[in-house]
């Protein structure tokens, strides 16, 4: 039986983005309905041309950064969309503050979404925040 999994990404660190992306990709590819709301310090990584690596928080993040075989969170989020129809939804408030439009984001990013709409669609599902 599939579940509805809602993920809120607000922290721009490697470990948190990685964990969110791992859950999104595996859940979506297993048939769960996955929505990821991107806001605050997590959202700049999805603007086209953003090349800066997310800073690590601690020891495991540093180890992960050294290992070549760790799939990047960007690739995992893309796979969540391509293999499991996950939705990656940029926060409209954050977009206003950053002065960006939908066209400024990577191709896998969905439409600008307000918090009210996200919470309404999230009703009845699990909510995970990173």
């Amino acid at each position, binding site marked *: 039986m599939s579940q509805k999994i809602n993920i809120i990404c607000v922290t721009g660190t490697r470990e948190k983005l990685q964990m969110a992306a*791992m859950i999104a*990709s*595996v859940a979506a*590819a*297993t*048939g769960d309905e996955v929505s990821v709301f991107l806001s605050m310090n997590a959202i700049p990584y999805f603007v086209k041309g953003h090349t800066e690596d997310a800073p690590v928080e601690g020891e495991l993040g540093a180890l992960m950064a050294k*290992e*070549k*075989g*760790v*799939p990047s969170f960007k690739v*995992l989020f893309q*796979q969540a969309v391509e*293999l499991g129809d996950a939705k990656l939804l940029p926060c409209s408030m954050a977009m206003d503050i950053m002065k960006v439009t939908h066209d400024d984001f990577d191709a896998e990013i969905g439409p600008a979404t307000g918090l009210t709409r996200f919470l309404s669609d999230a009703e009845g599902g699990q909510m995970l925040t990173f």
Partner: protein
Amino acid sequence: MSDTKIVDARDTFCPGPLMELITHMKQSSVGDTLELLSTDEGSGADVPEWVNKVGHEILSNEKINGVWHIKIRKAK
């Protein structure tokens, strides 16, 4: 009867091997057999969990010289 397609995901970490397998499963036809090679320790338990949940078939699952060899038949 089709040949076994090898999905070599050695030296990648979770969930890399599973996502590699799923990518190749999507491109395969019903009845095809795929063999995933993984050095990720969790694959031996996690990959069969995914295969069973989505309704494909595990044909074999063994660790040889530190590498998981997991054979799957696409069932739908």
